[in-house]
C-alpha cells in the first residue's frame, strides 16, 4: 500500500464534503430588510365618517377588545375637518390610514394593475367552476390591501395558482399605500397600516406567544411548510416587521386572523421575536442546517459523518 494512495482517500473525502456542501447553503438566515413607511396626513376629501369607533364597526376584523388593531385604542388621531380617523393605536403599535392625497394615484394604479381581476369597483368576481374567486376588496381596510401588494403577492403573477407567492412585487411601498388608500375610500374600514414599536417589545413573551399561536403552521423555526391541498405556510425569514403585524391582524388567505385574542402589546412581542430570533437565529453550535431539524441532522450525520468515517475505515483496513 503506497502513501500516494492516501491522497485518493483525501480526495474522496473532499468530494463527499463538496457534495454535501449544498446543505451548507441552507444554513444561516437570509438578511431581513425592514422597511417601514407610513404616511400621515390630515387632509381629506371623502364623505364624513363616524368620528370614533363604535360597536357597529365597519371592519371585517371586528373586536370589542381595546388596543387590538381597531380604533378603540389608547390614542386616536382624527382629521379636524372631516372627523375621520387618520391614525390610532397605543405605545406598542400605531396604525395609520393612508392619506387621501394618494387617492388619485391609487385609483390610477388600481385600474392598471388590479381591475382586470378584481373589477373596476373592487368588488371582485365570484368563484365559478374550477377557478377561485377574485375576492371582493371593499371594506377590508388598508392593511389588507397593503399587505398583499407590499409582500409582492399582488398583482398576482399566476392568478390561477392556489396560493400566491411572496416576491419583490411590481409596485413600490408608496404605490401600494396609494392603492390601499383608494380601495379603502370605497368603504372606509380598519385596520390601518401598522408601525410596531419594537423598542418596548418583550422578546421572551413573543417567543411563548409564537410557540402557542404561530408555530403550528409556520414551524417553531419560522421556515413554513406545506399544508392541505397545495396551500402552504410561508417562511418568515424575509418578512419586514410591519407586514408581520398586518398578517396577524388581517389573516390573509388561509391564515386565521388574530383580533381580540391578541392585543397590540402581544402582537408587538411576536413581531420582535420574528424579526430577531427567527430572522437572525442564534446558532452558537455551528451551521444551523436551515433549521430543518432532525431530518437535516440525520442527513448530515449519516451521509457526511458516517460516510467520511467509513471512508477512513476504508483506508485503515485492507481491500482483500
Amino acid at each position, binding site marked *: 500500500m503506497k*502513501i500516494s494512495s492516501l491522497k485518493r482517500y483525501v480526495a474522496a473525502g473532499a468530494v463527499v464534503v463538496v457534495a454535501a456542501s449544498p446543505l451548507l447553503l441552507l444554513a444561516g438566515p437570509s438578511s431581513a430588510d425592514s422597511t417601514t413607511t407610513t404616511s400621515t396626513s390630515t387632509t381629506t376629501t371623502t364623505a364624513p365618517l363616524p368620528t370614533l369607533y363604535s360597536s357597529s364597526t365597519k371592519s371585517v376584523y371586528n*373586536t370589542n377588545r381595546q388596543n387590538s388593531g381597531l380604533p378603540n385604542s389608547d390614542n386616536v388621531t382624527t382629521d379636524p375637518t372631516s372627523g375621520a380617523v387618520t391614525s390610532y393605536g397605543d405605545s406598542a403599535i400605531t396604525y395609520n390610514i393612508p392619506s387621501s392625497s394618494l387617492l388619485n394615484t391609487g385609483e390610477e394604479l388600481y385600474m392598471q394593475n388590479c381591475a382586470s381581476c378584481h373589477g373596476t369597483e373592487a368588488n371582485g368576481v365570484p368563484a365559478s367552476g374550477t377557478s377561485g374567486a377574485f375576492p371582493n376588496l371593499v371594506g377590508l381596510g388598508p392593511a389588507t390591501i397593503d399587505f398583499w401588494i407590499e409582500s409582492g403577492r399582488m398583482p398576482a403573477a399566476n392568478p390561477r395558482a392556489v396560493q400566491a407567492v411572496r416576491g419583490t412585487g411590481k409596485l413600490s411601498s408608496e404605490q401600494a399605500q396609494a392603492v390601499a388608500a383608494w380601495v379603502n375610500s370605497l368603504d372606509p374600514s380598519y385596520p390601518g397600516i401598522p408601525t410596531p414599536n419594537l423598542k418596548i417589545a418583550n422578546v421572551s413573551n413573543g417567543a411563548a406567544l409564537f410557540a402557542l399561536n404561530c408555530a403550528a403552521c409556520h414551524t417553531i423555526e419560522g421556515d413554513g411548510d406545506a399544508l392541505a*391541498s397545495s396551500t402552504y405556510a410561508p417562511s418568515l425569514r424575509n418578512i419586514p416587521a410591519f407586514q408581520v403585524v398586518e398578517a396577524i391582524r388581517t389573516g390573509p388567505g388561509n391564515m386565521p*386572523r388574530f383580533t381580540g385574542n391578541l392585543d397590540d402589546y402581544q402582537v408587538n412581542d411576536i413581531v420582535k421575536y420574528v424579526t430577531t430570533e427567527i430572522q437572525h437565529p442564534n446558532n452558537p*453550535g455551528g451551521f444551523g442546517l436551515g433549521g430543518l431539524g432532525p431530518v437535516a441532522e440525520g442527513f448530515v450525520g449519516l451521509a457526511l459523518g458516517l460516510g467520511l468515517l467509513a471512508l477512513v475505515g476504508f483506508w485503515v483496513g485492507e481491500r482483500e
Partner: protein
Amino acid sequence: MSENHEHRTPVSLSGLSPDDPHLQPAARNPRLVERNIAISFLAGIILIVVFVYAYIINAKPWTLGITLGGGLTLFGIGLIAWGKYLMPRGPFVEERHKLASSDEAREAMANAVVVRGGSVIKRRKMLGGLLGGGLGLFSLAALLPLLRSLGPLPKQTLDHTDWKPGSYAVDITGRRVHQDDLAVGSIVTVFPEGFENTDNGQAVDQTVIIRISNNDFTTMKGRESWAPKGYLAYSKLCTHLGCPVGLYEQQLQVLVCPCHQSMFNVNDGAMPTFGPAPRPLPQLPLYIDASGYLRAQKDFDQPVGPGFWERS
C-alpha cells in the same frame, strides 16, 4: 519491479527471523513516513495546546471543537499510519481451533447434568415441584413492586376533562373569552378557567375556539345550540396520537394536525377527511352567558384524544 515484488504467504508469528519480509514495514520509504507521522503528531499537539488556550479565554464552541477535534484527529491519523505503514506488515496467520470440546468432555458434562441432576429430581419430586412453584410465584409477585408501584390505575381518568357545566373559556393568560372578542376566521386556544396553568389543563382540557360565522352555527344534528354566534369549540387533542391540532386554515375551513397531517373538516363536527386520524375531534358545547362570556354547557360527550382499549 522493486524488491517488494515477491510472494508473501501468510506465516505464523512465532519462529520468524528478524529479517523476514513479513516483519518489515509496509512503507517503501519508512523515514519519509516517519517524518510525516511526526508532523501529524506535532500538529495535533499544537492544536491541543491551542484548545487549552481557547478554553482559558472562553472561546466560542466552534473554536473549542475545531482545536480539540483537529488535535485528536491528527493523533489518530498518525497512529493509524504508524500501524499501517511502519509496523510488521504480515500477513500473519493463526489456526482456528475447534471450538467444541472433545467428545469425552461433552459426555462428561452431559453425564453430570443428566445423571447427577436427574438423580436429585427423581428422588425429591415433591420438593422440586414446591420450589419451582414457589419461585414462579415469586417472579410474578416481584412484578408488583416493579410495575404496580410506578403509578395509579387509570380507572376513569381518561374519560373526563375538567370542563364542567358553566366553565368559563379562558386563554393562556387567564383572560375570559367574550363574544365580542373574535372576528370571523379567528382561532384561540382556551382552557377551563382555573386550569390554564395546570398540567392536566394544558394536556387534556386544551380546546380551540374558532369563530366560523357571526350567527349560530350547527355542525350536525343535535348540536344546534353548541356553537352560539358562530363560536365553534373542538378538543385540541388529535384523535390519532394526541398532538395539539393548532393549525387552522380559515378558507379551506379545515384543522390540520401538524404531526401526521390528519385533516378535520370544521364544518361538520371535525370529521377526519384525510390522514391517519380515525375519529372526529370531540366538540365542546358552548353557550354565551348574560355578560357575553363564552362558557361550556357541559363536558365533552366522549373521551378526548387518542384511542385506547377501554374507550367505548
